[in-house]
């Protein structure tokens, strides 16, 4: 007989699992909810009073985000102190474990398994080791239902503090940039209102304490993305792009909803007195301690991956992101490069316990997340080659870099992924704003027909764009190099020269990352050539943008140079120990809600080889564009963008590859043509043919037989017996219908009278019987 034993797992001093969070901490950390609140208020302010303000509401938006930025910086400083110096009380989670025993339990038995369980819950994870670095959690109950507290609150740790800083900084710069870029627009005020709402939603998302709050913020940023992509909705492609973004995201959001629900009940099953919990810390902690079934975690992680694939533009739900470039360029920089699209990456990083256990990241050599990230990074990088729209190059580049981050999380290189998110936000926002600055001058995004030679006319844009490109390509010592190299090292696939120690041996991911590094350098070289070199192909007089555009560009370019230095690798001999891994030290959680991951050892050989790969990719593109195309341009006297007899016209294979890339791997055709059209067109035709040949054939043959036997039956039985009965019943129903027809008056009140009469009769019967 099966008996259930309810055991409260206990640590030595306090009951329950240590969560790695505390309810104490500095005032700023506990009240981080003020940061999203300010832009939220500014959204309402702009919406109601914006049009009457002297600058049409822009000043309110900028002030709000500016205050939020200052608060975020102060919160960050408070965290730097809190990380090492806080020694307060750690919150513990009381859990119930249900054990099945084959026999009726005795009291001693009870105690035995009690001790066993307490031991197994804590043996490997080293929860007692570090009691500094407790995340600050501050929640209030939103509503209660059936004994479940649904709370809202903040979970402030290194990750959320970092995100607060990035979001407020990029948002502030984008606000300032926008006053020039969309100046005089017909929906200027609404634009700033939505920027404020977006900032508020994104900031809420990054400090979410529970998955429900995260889900709400997730949907809110989706709405803002929809509204801002469709900002110029009068043109059909723009509103189509907005719809496409929204609907593609809905596909993944279903995954998020299902995943969150699964986790809610799964966690509830091990908590006493309740049947569910949305708390992120609790979810991660019980997942880390092996209290949840692997199947539940696997299913939840897979569902959540669907959400990541849509929101963070992972293959094969990435197709909305390039189309989203229909929105204003500052929006692309803020939402579709630096912040919203990394929400998926953030969500993985936040629920890393679930993903780490569910997808068995440790000790494996391939898993769903790493594979999705790897494919995405390759697909994005290869597609960036064939775009003629500068923003689409950057959009595919973003997809590729997001793939990099997901790949890094998939191989267990948590800090590397988050660090790449950090550096990518700066250099990609810089590139997007730079492309906007160029487009602002030439009134087009087409590199081939309207750009070229911009370096003379726009020196500041040119310099910042070059800095951003080098950072993106990953040449030392700019930001992209450090984060990219950390990811490559984190794959643990570099066993050849001793640089190992990751969570498994993901050699395939290392190869994918290397190829992408080369491709990235090559397509950025192409993009820089087409935009800034050669002769000007557009029309009109081009001049540098104003200070409200140039200053944000330089700030971002400056960060693109120095951001990498925040996380110099451990064991890097050129700097003292206290400068190594600062970012990892402050951002990566230590225990409780964070799984035990092992860290890769950086290696000089890998860094040198990856740099050589980048230089190789860049030189190949440089040779093609700066040498061959430039020479051909001079010879023909025109500014060319490709060789007149380039590889695509000479080699059939190159032509085929170019075609496939040009058609974006035929994914859009797959979705609208084959999946949507296929379900109605070919499938319907196939069903029709099946119907005609198989079913009809059978039916025909049955029919012939039936006719013969039928003739016999008809004469004898039908005419005499059945017809008689049928005619009688027909006559009867006809007469009854004639009578009932009078009731069917068409007048609603006579129906009502019948209704009430019937109800009265029924009520009467009820009273009599009961």
């Amino acid at each position, binding site marked *: 007989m099966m008996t259930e034993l309810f055991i409260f797992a206990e640590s030595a001093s306090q009951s329950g699992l240590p969560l790695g969070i505390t309810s104490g901490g500095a005032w700023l950390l506990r009240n981080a909810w003020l940061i999203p609140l300010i832009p939220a208020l500014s959204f309402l302010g702009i919406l109601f009073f914006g049009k009457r303000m002297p600058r049409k509401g822009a000043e309110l938006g900028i002030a709000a985000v500016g205050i939020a930025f200052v608060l975020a910086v102060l919160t960050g400083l408070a965290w730097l102190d809190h990380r090492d110096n806080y020694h307060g009380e750690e919150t513990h989670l009381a859990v119930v474990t249900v054990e099945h025993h084959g026999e009726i339990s005795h009291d001693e038995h009870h105690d035995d398994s009690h001790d066993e369980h307490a031991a197994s819950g804590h043996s490997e994870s080293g929860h007692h080791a570090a009691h500094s670095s407790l995340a600050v959690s501050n929640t209030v109950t939103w509503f209660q239902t059936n004994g479940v507290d649904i709370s809202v609150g903040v979970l402030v740790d290194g990750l959320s503090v970092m995100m607060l800083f990035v979001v407020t900084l990029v948002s502030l710069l984008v606000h300032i940039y926008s006053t020039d870029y969309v100046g005089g627009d017909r929906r200027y005020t609404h634009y700033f209102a939505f920027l404020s709402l977006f900032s508020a939603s994104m900031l809420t998302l990054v400090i979410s304490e529970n998955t429900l709050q995260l889900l709400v913020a997730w949907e809110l940023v989706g709405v803002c993305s929809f509204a801002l992509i469709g900002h110029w909705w009068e043109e059909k492609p723009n509103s189509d792009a907005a719809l496409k973004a929204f609907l593609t995201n809905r596909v993944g959001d279903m995954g998020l909803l299902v995943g969150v629900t699964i986790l809610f009940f799964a966690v509830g099953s091990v908590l006493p007195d309740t049947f569910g919990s949305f708390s992120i810390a609790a979810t991660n902690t019980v997942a880390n301690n092996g209290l949840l079934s692997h199947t539940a975690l696997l299913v939840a992680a897979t569902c959540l991956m669907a959400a990541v694939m849509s929101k963070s533009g992972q293959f094969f739900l990435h197709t909305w992101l390039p189309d989203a470039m229909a929105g204003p360029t500052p929006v692309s920089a803020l939402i579709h490069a630096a912040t919203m699209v990394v929400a998926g990456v953030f969500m993985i990083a936040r629920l890393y316990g679930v993903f780490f256990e569910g997808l068995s990241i440790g000790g494996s050599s391939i898993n769903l997340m790493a594979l999705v990230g790897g494919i995405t990074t390759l697909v994005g990088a290869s597609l960036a080659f064939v775009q003629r729209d500068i923003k689409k190059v950057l959009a595919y580049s973003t997809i590729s870099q997001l793939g990099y981050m997901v790949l890094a999380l998939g191989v267990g290189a948590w800090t590397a992924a988050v660090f790449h998110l950090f550096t990518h936000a700066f250099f990609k926002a810089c590139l997007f704003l730079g492309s906007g600055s160029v487009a602002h001058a030439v009134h087009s995004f087409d590199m081939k027909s309207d750009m070229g030679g911009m370096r003379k006319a726009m020196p500041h844009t040119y310099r910042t764009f070059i800095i951003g490109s080098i950072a993106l390509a990953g040449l030392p010592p700019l930001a992209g190099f450090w984060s990219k190299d950390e990811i490559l090292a984190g794959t643990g696939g570099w066993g050849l020269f001793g640089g190992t120690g990751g969570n498994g041996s993901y050699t395939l991911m290392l190869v994918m990352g290397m190829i992408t590094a080369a491709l990235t350098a090559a397509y950025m070289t192409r993009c820089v050539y087409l935009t800034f070199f050669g002769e000007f192909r557009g029309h009109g007089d081009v001049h540098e943008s104003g200070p409200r555009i140039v200053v944000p560009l330089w700030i971002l370019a400056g960060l693109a140079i120095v951001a990498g230095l925040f996380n110099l690798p451990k064991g890097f001999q050129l700097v003292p120990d206290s400068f190594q891994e600062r970012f990892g030290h402050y951002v990566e959680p230590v225990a409780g809600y964070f799984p035990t991951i092992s860290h890769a050892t950086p290696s000089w050989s890998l860094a040198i080889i990856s740099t050589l790969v980048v230089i190789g990719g860049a030189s190949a593109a440089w040779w093609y564009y700066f040498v061959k195309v430039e020479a051909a341009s001079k010879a023909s006297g025109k500014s060319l963008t490709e060789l007149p007899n380039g590889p695509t016209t000479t080699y059939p294979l190159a032509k085929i590859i170019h075609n496939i890339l040009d058609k974006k791997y035929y994914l859009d055709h797959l979705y609208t043509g084959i999946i949507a059209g296929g379900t109605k067109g070919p499938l319907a035709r196939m069903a029709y043919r099946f119907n005609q040949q198989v079913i009809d054939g059978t039916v025909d043959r049955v029919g012939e037989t039936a006719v013969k036997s039928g003739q016999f039956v008809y004469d004898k039985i039908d005419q005499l017996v059945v017809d008689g009965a049928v005619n009688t019943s027909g006559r009867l129903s006809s007469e009854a219908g004639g009578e009932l027809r009078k009731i*069917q008056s068409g*007048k609603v*009140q006579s129906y*009502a009278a019948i209704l*009430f009469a019937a109800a009265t009769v029924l009520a009467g019967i009820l009273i009599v019987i009961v």
Partner: protein
Amino acid sequence: MYLNQFLLLSAALFAIGVYGVLARRNGVLVLMSIELILNAVNINLVSFAAFRDSISGEVFALFVIAVAAAEVGVGLAMILLLYRNRRNIDLTEIDLMKG
């Protein structure tokens, strides 16, 4: 206060409502009578809830109010369309569904 006082009020309201639905020819008045019926039900729900010290009746009444609001919205829209098409909202003249 006795429960039956409330029930009597509710029954009276219900009867008035039924009379209105059956006898009035004006569509808007019929809709208003339906509201009377629903509110008679609400009075029943709330008074029983108060009598039994249970909140569920009151919660249910809130739902009824919300649904009634939606229903009246749809109903008024239909009557508005009828008026636009026929310049008349006499329910006895609307009998296109006559069998």
